[in-house]
């Protein structure tokens, strides 16, 4: 009672102060509306905890979220439009910048789409090299996601350990492609170069040292009471809702659906490897975290098998119409010069047709729908970006939860702004 009375008198004071203010300056904005029960909170666009540029305008009742309006498109770069003017090989650099945490998957996914259109058969060695690099990319993607989840719950150490490991993977990328983050790796028809001895050595060393760090990370987090209290039952989504929302990848598997493109529509010789698909039960943040952790182990298994059985042979297809000849040959061999010229100038005609190809990206089914009218560029290229599709569910997942829950939910969904906006 006493509290209410005090509150009422406070309101009166504010009311009179406002009236006075308006009397003095009728245009002065009213800053605080104390009669309103709900608060509007701008989460983003540049909030450090969103790990990317996107905005959520949340209606809060105290600390509970009542509703949310997501706004995206802050780093929209019109990739689909730009792709309509670029020859196939120049689009690789666009795919890099979609999910920049796992660029090689995007690169190879695009190359495989073009190969499907052209009917180019890639030799086994190139396929295995691709598998190794794609799984490395998946590991780095999951390391970032799970490391950041730790940071968002207040544990910076795990993230620091994992960043160190990501750095080593980037060194392997460097050996293979010369680049680290936006790798522009591979070519239509295979790889641009074979694994060097240094790359193999670095990979083998990393395969020996990484499991220790990963186990340490898991010891630190998996059964940590504080960590579990923060993320168990937070941001859960049922399997039905997840499917209706078009979830794919680890987020869908956390909800209990064992859909993985690598198993259902094997590409790049994934059928040769023995690995398991981890699934969760409740689709909450803890399940997403655990599914990603387990996928890292499974990816390691795949890499080890691929490295063990790495076939000998060429590392690119014998497709001179589409695969750039070695630079030395361009100077000495007339055919090579002609092909080089034709490829670079975009004189090669592609078949007319439309093709959809999808790979299992870091966040789920990364699809490429390519319509070719026979010209040097795609007539239409549509990217199925998993982030763009599942981020719609975010509002539904966080309504009724607290702000800190919303942060960890966002973090565990691994929304990558580049992929979201394309």
């Amino acid at each position, binding site marked *: 009672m006493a509290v209410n009375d005090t509150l009422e008198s406070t309101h009166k004071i504010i009311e009179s102060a406002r009236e006075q203010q308006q009397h003095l300056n009728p245009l002065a904005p009213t800053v605080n509306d104390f009669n309103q029960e709900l608060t509007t909170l701008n989460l983003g666009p540049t909030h450090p905890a969103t790990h990317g540029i996107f905005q959520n305008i949340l209606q809060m009742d105290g600390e509970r979220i009542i509703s949310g309006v997501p706004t995206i498109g802050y780093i929209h770069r019109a990739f689909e439009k730009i792709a309509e003017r670029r020859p196939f090989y120049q689009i690789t650099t666009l795919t890099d910048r979609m999910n920049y945490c796992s660029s090689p998957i995007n690169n190879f996914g695009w190359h495989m789409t073009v190969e499907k259109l052209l009917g180019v058969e890639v030799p086994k060695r190139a396929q295995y090299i691709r598998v190794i690099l794609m799984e490395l990319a998946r590991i780095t993607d999951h390391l970032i996601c799970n490391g950041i989840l730790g940071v968002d719950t207040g544990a910076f150490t795990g993230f620091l350990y994992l960043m160190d490991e990501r750095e080593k993977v980037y060194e392997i990328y460097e050996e293979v492609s010369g680049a680290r983050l936006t790798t522009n790796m591979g070519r239509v028809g295979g790889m641009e170069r074979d694994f060097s001895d240094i790359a193999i050595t670095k990979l083998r060393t990393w395969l020996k040292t990484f499991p220790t760090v990963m186990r340490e990370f898991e010891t630190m987090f998996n059964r940590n009471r504080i960590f579990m209290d923060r993320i168990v039952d937070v941001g859960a989504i049922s399997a039905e809702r997840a499917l209706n929302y078009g979830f794919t990848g680890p987020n869908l598997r956390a909800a209990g659906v064992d859909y993985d493109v690598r198993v259902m529509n094997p590409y790049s010789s994934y059928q040769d490897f023995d690995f398991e698909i981890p699934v969760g039960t409740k689709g909450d943040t803890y399940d997403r975290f655990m599914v990603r952790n387990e996928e890292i182990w499974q990816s390691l298994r795949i890499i080890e098998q691929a490295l063990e059985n790495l076939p000998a042979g060429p590392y690119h297809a014998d497709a001179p119409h589409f695969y750039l000849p070695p630079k030395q040959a361009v100077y000495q061999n007339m055919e090579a010069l002609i092909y080089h010229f034709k490829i670079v100038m*975009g004189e090669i005609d592609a078949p007319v047709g439309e093709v959809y190809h*999808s790979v299992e990206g870091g966040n789920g089914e990364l699809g490429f729908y390519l319509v070719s009218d026979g010209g040097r560029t795609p007539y239409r290229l549509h990217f199925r970006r998993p982030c763009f599709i599942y981020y719609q569910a975010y509002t539904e997942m966080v309504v009724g939860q607290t702000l800190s829950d919303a942060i960890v939910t966002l973090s565990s969904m691994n929304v990558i702004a580049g992929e979201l906006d394309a």
Partner: protein
Amino acid sequence: MADQNESIPAQEQAAAQDPATQQNAQLLALLHRLFGEAAFTDVEESYGLLTVTTTREQIHGIIAGLQKDQELQLNFLTTMCGVHWPEQEGREMSIVYHLHSLTRNIRLRLKIFFPIADPVAPTLTDLYSCANWMEREAFDFYGIIFPGHPNLMRILNVEDMDYHPMRKEYALEDGTREDKTDLFFGR
């Protein structure tokens, strides 16, 4: 290009596609049984993926029917996107839907065409929650209107943009430039 196609033996190609062809035949039979043969035109198998064209009047019923159907369970909307064909008189705009059955692993591509003067297509938001942003994207890029959509506004581009940039009439570079004519490189 010609020797590229010849380098793959025809038999090998046929053998690889055989299970997919059977599945597609089964799927096509189901489509015909559920919705009638007249509902579909331009049936083709493009790189192993069954592609059918239908009309915008029927598309909602077809996707709803496939979602409910227990035999093939095509109840996952993989993606949808607009395509602009300026040369096709009366059917300039197109929407391409990709459906997927996660239990049977069958994919289906559905297309609808309609005139650009009347760019209206039925919304799928009552069937699939994920259609919400996909349709907003199609509206943003191509100006396709989806009556009944809960929140049809631009999603990736700025709100006060006054054109739909993915339409073919908007060239990527300034059309008045003379120093970079594209004479030698296709379009």
